């Protein structure tokens, strides 16, 4: 079931055709998924204040209805270490077309995964899961399943990934928390079913998984026209 605030986010986004990252993250957080601590700063002061609150280093991302792929337009800065760097980044972002502020959020690391969804003409909502990051289309190590996912689907999704050893701990790395990942997929699948009528596709990319948590580091919801 979508909450009232979720409905509001969706209807406010209808005009631009997709949900801006801070709002998408808010929506998933309302749905019970883990997101980094973040703030949508419209002024430099707000950005500085929030960075101080969560401590450096932080990530900065441009918020603009005209920028769907932020890194393509140089709209992502990772590892901002001090006020000076934050100001520089803010100034640079403010020159990007459609600038509506800057997303300031805590730095999170982990294995980069992608969790996505799309409305398929023949099968309805489907969920995608795999190795995430910028090169997801190059490596294509992903698994697709029709939603809603059953526990057996989630188990087989993890099993079928070529990069499965990376989830289980490879060459001294600690395994990721499979329960958290499984919970994320199950919750996400439920949300997708609730959003069936309004979405075209969703990318949570990357989702960063460690031995303790699975955090949605970036989220994009493309709405039906």
């Amino acid at each position, binding site marked *: 079931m979508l909450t009232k605030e979720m409905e509001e986010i969706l209807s406010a986004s209808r005009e631009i055709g997709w949900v801006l990252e801070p709002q998408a993250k808010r929506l998933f957080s309302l749905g019970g998924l883990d997101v980094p601590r973040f703030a949508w700063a419209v002024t430099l002061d707000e950005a500085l204040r929030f960075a101080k609150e969560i401590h450096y280093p932080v990530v900065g991302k441009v918020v603009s209805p005209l920028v*769907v792929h932020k890194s393509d337009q140089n709209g992502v800065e990772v590892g901002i270490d001090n006020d000076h760097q934050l100001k520089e980044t803010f100034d640079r972002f403010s020159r990007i077309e459609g600038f509506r502020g800057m997303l300031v959020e805590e730095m999170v690391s982990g294995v980069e995964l992608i969790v*996505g969804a*799309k409305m398929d003409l*023949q099968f309805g909502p489907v969920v995608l899961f795999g190795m995430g990051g910028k090169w997801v289309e190059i490596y294509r190590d992903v698994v697709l399943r*029709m939603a809603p996912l059953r526990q057996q689907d989630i188990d087989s999704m993890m099993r079928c990934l070529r990069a499965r050893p990376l989830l289980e701990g490879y060459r001294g790395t600690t395994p990721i928390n499979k329960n958290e990942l499984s919970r994320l997929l199950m919750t996400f699948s439920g949300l997708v079913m609730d959003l069936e009528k309004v979405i*075209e596709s*969703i*990318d949570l990319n990357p989702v960063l998984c460690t031995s303790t948590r699975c955090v949605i580091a970036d989220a*994009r919801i*493309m709405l039906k026209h």
Partner: protein
Amino acid sequence: MIICHPISFISRKEKKVDLNPLFKPETLAVIGVSMSNERHPANVIYYKNHFRQPVKVFPINDRGGMLQGENVYANVLEIRQPIDLAVIATRAEAVPKILSDCIQAEVKGAVIVSGGFAERGRGDLQDRIVAIAKEANFPFIGPNCLGIYSPPYVDTFFIPSERVVRPQKGRVALISQSGGILVDHMIKLAGEGVGISKTVSIGNKALIRERELLNYFIADPETLVIAFYIEGFGENEGREFVLRAENSGKPVIVLKAGKTSSGVRAVSSHTASIAGDYEVFSSVLAQHGVVEAKDEFELISFCEALCCYQKPIDGRIGIITGSGGHGALAVDACISHGLSVPTLTEEAQKEMREKISPRIKEIASFNNPIDLTGSAMDDDFVEAATFLSRKKEVDCLLILLLPYVPGITSDLGARLSRIYRQEGKPMIAYVPHVERYLMFIEGFQLNEIPVAHSIEEAVHMAEALRRHQPC
């Protein structure tokens, strides 16, 4: 949750539509026979049913008259007998009126062979016949199709009898959007000795679609395996299809055409860009245990294998061979298809050694693959198959039979099939397919053990058994 209607769709009148009269008609009206052209599709259909099928056939042409001494009716309403099935093979424009006549005459269903509908830009005409049929709860197959081949009841294919190779009566139902592909696969199934329960060419599938036929064949006691050639599902139809297939208890095989996308994909998201139509299709089928055949060869061999064994396996393969090289190739093929070839314990190997003929004891190898060598006899294969059939480590046997091994006879297929019947562990044979070895091949096939043309195909068959379960 999707609700699937058993056997048939339910129309506005909430009356169930029965497809049985289409597949087992006692009376058949062939509408549109030509008085002058003996090669007209309607005439071909009329004659082949009239002379070769038990169904009683009535020819119809709106001008009436006589056709080779038989009375031709001007309208289906003139026939003073209840008609189960009407085959309509007239111009497309005439079909709506004929359909209404059939409904008025209380015909139970129709096959519309005629083309000239949606496939020729006449979606409007197609919509009209669908509306007429839905209003009256009247089922029809087509238009633009060959229709139904349902031995020994009826055959609406407008292909002269002497040009068709018919598989024997069997347990595979084959449903195809394309008539040509259907006939082609019937020929190939016949070649492999795989029997058909019924085949249907659905053409434009304006009313009766894959979903209705899936439901019908799930309930059909003559059908064990349901195979489809599909170009694509309608909106959300795939969802209903896989959910129904998963819980059907019968293997469902699908060959999909149109795997490559010609359109430009949306690049708005990674997911939309990676999850193309075919990628989703293939994944969702596997998720629900629907066996996807990648090409026509797989379709035929999967039909053959799943017709013999409906119970899924985990894919732990035990290999028995008369040649080390064949064994090695089979292991490679198994591994590359995600099947395993478990090793046997020292103890088990010793036990096996005790059972085989003295002359190969020292030269045979008893790990998996069990290589009985070129000196093996029928008895050795039988012993090895019995032995592996009782071992929990493996759940399917691959018998690589080389008919040129001197100690082997054509009795072997029948003997091995008896082991399957006793022990219940599926068995797949490879025998080189040349005429000289037909006796060996038939020894298996006539006893319902699937036989592959190549080692690779034998492994594909085992893979089909594994894939017939949710992944």
